[in-house]
């Protein structure tokens, strides 16, 4: 048996383990004493590896390049040469006809690795000539990045996972660690046993609420009002640190102008919280020697996500809970490399290392390094701009790497219309997905476990993961594919291995410069900023209360509360929020192909509902129900639970039948373009004929699986002469 060091490919906790391999087959996992996981793993870490063996439980692995010349036709197998020539030919045509900004490229915050993301954004900027590159941080923590950059200067967790257990107060705001990051939740449990106070702000009675000293069950959609009331209490009751505010922050007066009306009494009708509860929370938070705020999608997936992030940063600034050990604020990253995809510049406004594309000196630096006279200066499209831009005819082609927007974006009907409007969709992935069904070209890539690379965990920690399995012939690494297409487009790109890519990118990014492969070998953990090889990396940011904003001071910025966009009414009386299933990850192309994880949770997925609402509707626990919004209607299984608040229901987003994104609204935050996944008005209807409904689930599931499986088996490759005729002119 052989052992290979891996970083878990699921959430951003950055857990390390050995992947056990026998005869080029994954056979197990053994936890390692990594910096963040300390020898522990959750169910996805322990039992989420068998997809590597192509179990075909949900969908088959992609094995060969495929092309179809009409979306009505089945895919046809082609050689890599033909596939690359076809993609480059079509992209070249589209670029010539509509300009480079008609092409959208995605990075991937999943198992591809940092090097693949660096190459993907270089492909977009240098080979295509556009800043239209983004990754699915857009639909999760983009507001954290935007909000923290504006207030503190850097968009990542200010602290480290390890510090969480030694803090004196954990304020969890819209953060359900038990389901999204069990190995981070573990630190909250440890903090509790060490005597920390725990405060949970969440409409649901989540696991953390259970062990909290204080639970603030705010109404769905009232985040900004509550955060403003927190600030109001800190200031009016003299709980804030005047010295810290005077010396290390700016903007207090304008901040107070907005905050002053948000008394706990003023926000009571908005939040539904007793004023005393808000006051007590701030007395605990401000009274702690070191306090930490953690947040997740409950803060970011709103039309007003960025503002709330700025508000939470403001709470930490007011109390001086930044710049020292065991304090800080942490947007806990949901995908294993969502921090990394952002670090690598798979963003429409940043080069790698958060260097602005709008700054001429940055463009000059990257243009010189990439042997080009100039680079585009226009900020590109965001992922959530894509459907509308395609419908409007502004985007004509999309080159997707390792993402499944046809499952994960809001308002899937609009996503499909966007895809249909495009002339070319290239999908580079490891599994047949719902998005693959819209593609013109499918390029099969190697999976996590089949390639080397570096991931960035949620607390800015670079870690290496190693190739454990020899990929089946016919697969290429993501960075190899992008390099081949770039070369065919007339921009030669070639790398021999991931270390070459890594060395190129760290030479261009001052804050990553010291994080060499050697330093990260084995269980090595290097947290950026790491400006040179002798630097140990940075556990927490802003030492000495020096912020990385232009003035070096923390910015206090407040906003008025805005109500969510969708409206509940008689017809659609319940709020739908989309949440996480602990045993599944993202679109579930990986976890859905894992036997144990699928056994634990499978289609059609649950809609959780409070017993009072269920009783009113005549909905029984475990019964199949319809959930309908103004945009769509899906079937799901009712989970009647007191942990769900009255007036709201929750679904997880990876199911095909219970696809909650058929229901979600396409309203985005104006600054981060992140969708308001947490608030869509819906109604739940019981189904009288449960036998029919159970059969419907079974049949629909089989049919969807069969369609994807069939599509993954292309027509055989055409004879050489015929293939030649199919090549673009």
């Amino acid at each position, binding site marked *: 048996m052989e052992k290979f060091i891996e970083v878990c490919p699921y959430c951003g906790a950055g857990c390390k383990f050995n992947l056990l391999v026998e005869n080029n087959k994954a056979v*197990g996992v053994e936890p390692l004493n990594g910096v963040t996981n300390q020898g*522990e*793993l*959750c*169910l996805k870490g*322990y*039992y989420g590896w*068998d997809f590597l*063996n192509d*179990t075909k439980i949900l969908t088959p692995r992609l094995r060969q390049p495929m092309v179809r010349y009409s979306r009505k036709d089945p895919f046809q197998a082609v050689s890599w040469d033909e596939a690359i020539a076809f993609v480059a030919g079509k992209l070249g045509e589209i670029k010539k006809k509509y300009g480079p900004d008609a092409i959208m490229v995605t990075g991937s915050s999943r198992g591809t690795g940092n090097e693949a993301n660096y190459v993907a954004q270089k492909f977009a900027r240098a080979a295509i000539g556009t800043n239209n590159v983004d990754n699915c941080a857009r639909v999760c923590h983009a507001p954290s990045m935007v909000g923290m950059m504006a207030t503190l200067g850097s968009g990542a967790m200010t602290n480290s996972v390890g510090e969480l257990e030694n803090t004196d107060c954990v304020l969890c705001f819209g953060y359900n*660690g*038990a*389901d999204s990051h*069990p*190995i981070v*939740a*573990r630190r909250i*449990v*440890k903090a*509790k*046993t060490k005597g920390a106070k725990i405060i949970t702000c969440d409409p649901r*009675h989540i*696991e953390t609420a*259970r*062990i909290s000293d204080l639970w603030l069950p705010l109404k769905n959609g009232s985040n900004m009002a509550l955060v403003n009331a927190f600030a109001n209490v800190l200031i009016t009751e003299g709980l804030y640190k005047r010295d810290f505010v005077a010396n290390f922050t700016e903007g207090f007066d304008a901040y107070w102008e907005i905050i002053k009306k948000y008394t706990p009494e003023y926000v009571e009708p908005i939040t539904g919280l007793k004023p005393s509860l808000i006051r007590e929370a701030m007395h605990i938070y401000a009274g702690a020697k070191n306090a930490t705020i953690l947040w997740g999608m409950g803060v970011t997936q709103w039309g007003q996500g960025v503002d709330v992030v700025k508000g939470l940063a403001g709470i930490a600034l007011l109390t001086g809970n930044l710049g020292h050990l065991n304090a800080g604020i942490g947007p806990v990253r949901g995908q294993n490399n969502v921090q990394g995809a952002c670090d690598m510049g798979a963003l429409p406004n940043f080069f790698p290392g958060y260097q602005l594309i709008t700054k001429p000196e940055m463009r000059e630096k990257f243009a010189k390094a990439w042997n080009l006279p100039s680079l585009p200066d226009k900020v590109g499209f965001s992922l959530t701009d894509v459907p509308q831009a395609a419908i409007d005819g502004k985007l004509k082609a999309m080159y997707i790497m390792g993402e499944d927007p046809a499952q994960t974006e809001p308002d899937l009907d609009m996503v499909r219309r966007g895809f249909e409007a495009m002339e070319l969709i290239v999908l580079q992935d490891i599994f047949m997905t719902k998005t693959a069904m819209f593609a013109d070209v499918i390029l099969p890539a190697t999976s996590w476990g089949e390639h080397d690379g570096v991931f960035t965990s949620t607390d800015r920690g670079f870690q290496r993961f190693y190739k454990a399995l020899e990929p089946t012939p016919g697969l290429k690494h993501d960075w190899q594919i992008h390099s081949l297409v770039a070369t065919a487009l007339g921009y030669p790109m070639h790398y021999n291995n991931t270390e070459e890519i890594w060395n190129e990118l760290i030479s261009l990014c001052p804050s990553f410069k010291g994080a060499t492969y050697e330093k990260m070998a084995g269980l090595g953990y290097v947290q950026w900023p790491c400006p040179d090889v002798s630097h140990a990396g940075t556990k927490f940011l802003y030492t000495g209360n020096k912020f990385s904003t232009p003035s070096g001071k923390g910015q206090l910025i407040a906003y008025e509360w805005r109500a969510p966009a969708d409206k509940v009414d008689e017809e659609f009386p319940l709020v739908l929020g989309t949440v996480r299933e*602990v*045993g599944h990850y993202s679109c579930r192309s990986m976890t859905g192909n*894992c*036997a*144990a*994880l699928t*056994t*634990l949770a*499978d289609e059609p997925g649950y809609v959780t509902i409070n017993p009072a609402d269920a009783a009113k509707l005549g909905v029984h626990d475990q019964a199949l129900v319809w959930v309908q919004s103004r945009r769509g209607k899906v079937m799901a299984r009712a989970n009647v*639970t*007191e*942990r769900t608040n009255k007036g709201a229901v929750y679904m997880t987003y990876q199911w095909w039948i219970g696809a909650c994104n058929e229901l979600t609204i396409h309203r985005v935050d104006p600054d981060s373009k992140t969708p308001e996944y947490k608030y869509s008005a819906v109604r739940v209807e019981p189904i009288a004929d449960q036998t029919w409904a159970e059969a419907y689930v079974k049949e629909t599931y089989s049919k969807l699986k069969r369609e994807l499986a069939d599509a993954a088996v292309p027509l055989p490759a055409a004879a050489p002469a015929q293939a030649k005729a199919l090549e673009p002119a």
Partner: protein
Amino acid sequence: MNRFIAADSTKCIGCRTCEIACALAHEPSHDIEALTPTRFEPRLHLVRTFQVSTMATCHQCEDAPCLHACPTGAIFHAGDVVQVDQLRCIGCKSCVIACPFGAMQVVTFPAHRVFAGIELPGGVKAEAHKCDLCANRDAGPACVQVCPTKALHVVDAATLEETRRRRQQHSALEPSGLSAVA
């Protein structure tokens, strides 16, 4: 004294890693790909109410009601654990009714009989499932090993005595602070 698995609800995060570990430890092939919804029988189960998340499992009772209820003598004391001789189990479910913790489960699967050297399908075979403390596993109970928050523990005579001693001391020193007992 029998050893048993104790669950600490203040540490449980309801992730069910232990349920998979249990099902896999008792899967004869130990092959993860053998787990399916019809072949997934963990011997501990997550209980979730508004205020509680914890694992329900066998207490390895000293005077075990399941053992007394069994009409075929399939349930017996084996050293410091209550075990089931599956060959003798007839699937009568008396143990399920008798167990006050809901820790017994009777599962059935297609049975085979050998007649004149030929294997023939022959009705169903029943098994009474309960926590066996992973008796045949070198590393001890799988659930305890994988729990990421260390909410599960094997309690034996020594650890139980230690807990008693600590609580006696604590109550003597801080009689009013019983709720804070760790």
